[in-house]
């Protein structure tokens, strides 16, 4: 019985109910991806129409349409319209299949999501549609079948299709965020889904455990822990009991996986001085990447793996530098401010986010990779650290003391829509957004 249900839950059928002609790259002009947050797209998400009767359908009609709204809202692209202004009754046919577009354009909705929901014996069948109300056109139409427990996955998958039809990118709905939390009394690593749901603990070191870093296939995580009494580098497979520990003399810190490779850069000080090295995924030193007396730390790879940003004190204060791996050339990126650390290279390749400290407090900045145009994204709201880009390059996750203890927040790459990701006991720091995962 259980295996049968598991089988069903894995067999979420997603079927195109209508082929959509003309869906090509030309369809991606809804959201100007160079300035996506200047004008948010007004979208209406009425409660889903109940196709079956009963309490389950009644409740799911509301909770799932809410979940869909929240999930779309998370991207920062949309203005979710208030349901009280809606003219159409979602429980009539006009609320689902036979849409009267004027009902929606007259309240300012440019996009509309309707849904029909059928619940039977713990099985869920949902049909979801995305319309362009002005063009009076169906953009996405899908039907999903699964267990009740698959509801979040179904909604995320549809949202992924919505974002794909509007931007040409699948978005972040299958991603996760790793972070450090003191909930258990010591610093340990935790992972949650992109929207803060489904928090789970990854390490049980009862020690100081820091700086999680995802491999580009999302299968491995590297971090530093004092589990054996000193700062060692742990490389761990997230599902299987595999991994290794790099435990050289001195510090073994700040891992950063090279995109699409099973190797990673990390800072080791066995030579007596913190330098960045390239290591295999099994923890063997391949080569040394920096050569400078003094601090070199915090490597961050360009998406093509050809350049590495890092922090160095070679000019007297901590600043961000970029090394061209092929030529060996190093150039300084940041000149504004006296303490610039924690570089994170945008997956789009054109920007680097970092933390800049003034008066003892950090704020998040982004700068073009040519060193032009540093822009401050957080202002006058406590200490703001550890920026990490979402894999679609649209959002930045970071930690902040704006509400007291360190907690995890998300904002767009332009600094808009700043909000808390989750609430958990203790303090949360050092968030790291996962790469895009293969669909589960």
């Amino acid at each position, binding site marked *: 019985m259980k295996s049968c249900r598991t089988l069903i839950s894995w067999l979420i059928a997603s079927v195109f109910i209508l082929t959509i002609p003309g869906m090509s790259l030309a369809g991606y002009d809804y959201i100007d991806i160079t300035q996506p947050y200047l004008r948010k797209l007004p979208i209406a998400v009425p409660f889903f129409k109940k196709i079956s009767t009963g309490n389950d359908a009644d409740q799911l009609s509301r909770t799932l349409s809410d979940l869909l709204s929240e999930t779309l809202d998370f991207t920062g692209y949309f203005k979710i319209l208030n349901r009280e202004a809606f003219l159409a009754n979602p429980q009539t046919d006009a609320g689902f299949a036979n849409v009267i577009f004027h009902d929606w354009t007259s309240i300012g909705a440019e996009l509309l999501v309707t849904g029909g929901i059928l619940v039977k014996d713990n099985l869920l069948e949902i049909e979801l549609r995305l319309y362009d109300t002005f063009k009076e056109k169906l953009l996405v139409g899908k039907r999903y079948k699964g267990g009740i427990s698959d509801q979040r996955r179904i909604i995320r998958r549809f949202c992924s299709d919505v974002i794909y039809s509007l931007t040409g990118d699948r978005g972040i709905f299958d991603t996760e965020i790793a972070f450090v939390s003191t909930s258990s009394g010591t610093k340990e690593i935790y992972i949650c889904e992109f929207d803060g749901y489904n928090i789970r603990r990854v390490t049980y070191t009862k020690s100081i455990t820091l700086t999680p870093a995802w491999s580009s296939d999302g299968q491995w995580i590297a971090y530093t822990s004092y589990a054996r009494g000193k700062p060692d580098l742990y490389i761990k497979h997230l599902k299987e009991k595999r991994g290794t520990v790099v435990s050289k003399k*001195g510090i073994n810190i700040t891992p950063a996986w090279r995109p699409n490779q099973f190797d990673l850069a990390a800072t080791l*000080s066995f030579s007596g001085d913190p330098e960045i090295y390239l290591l295999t995924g099994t923890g063997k030193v391949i080569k040394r990447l920096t050569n400078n007396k003094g601090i070199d730390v915090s490597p961050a790879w360009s998406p093509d793996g050809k350049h590495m940003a890092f*922090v160095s004190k070679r000019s007297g204060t901590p600043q961000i530098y970029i090394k061209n791996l092929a030529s060996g050339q190093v150039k300084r990126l940041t000149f504004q401010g006296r303490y610039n650390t924690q570089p994170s290279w945008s997956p789009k390749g054109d920007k680097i986010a970092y933390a800049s400290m003034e008066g003892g407090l950090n704020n998040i900045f982004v700068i073009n990779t040519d060193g032009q145009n540093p822009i401050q994204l957080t202002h006058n709201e406590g200490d703001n650290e550890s920026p990490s880009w979402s894999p679609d390059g649209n959002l930045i996750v970071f930690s902040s003391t704006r509400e007291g203890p360190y907690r995890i927040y998300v904002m767009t790459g332009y600094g808009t829509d700043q909000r808390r990701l989750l609430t958990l006991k203790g303090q949360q720091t050092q968030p790291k957004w996962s790469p895009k995962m293969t669909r589960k």
Partner: protein
Amino acid sequence: MRNKLWIILTLAFIVPGLLFTVSCAKKAVKDDAALAQQAQDEEAKAAKAAAEKARQEELARQQAMEEQQLKEESTLKQEARDMFLNDDIHFEFDSSTLTSGAQLTLKKKAEWLQNNPDAASTIEGHCDERGTSEYNLALGDRRANSAKAFLVDLGISASRLTTISYGEERPEDPGHNEESWAKNRRCHFTIK
């Protein structure tokens, strides 16, 4: 015949009686001599005991003096050890350069290490909470290594010195002001 019997009987009583008398007299003489000898022995013994007692007292006095001296020495040793453990060296913000005060403290630590050739030490590098934790781990490493290099230059074998960086993870003072930060920018020394 009858008279002969009486004589024999009488003799039978007298002779053992005489014999008894003789033996008694002899014994008394012997006891007197033993007593005299005993008295003499006891006198010697007492003299000997007195001498021994005096010697013991002298020994105890010497031992007490030695103990006192040892105690004073061990107090000094303990104080030196405590100073080695408790006197942290401090740094300027974002700096691993040894201040003149830090150098003075390190010289005392080198002296202690020279006086205690079997001791090995771990040097912990710490930072204040400002700045970012990754950079501070590297800075703490630099601080511990600066202190180590200074001690090695003063003749302490590098093999007796281990470094560990705690970055900003283990502040000495939990405050959020310059006074606390100054305390937290430090190297702390432990003995293995």
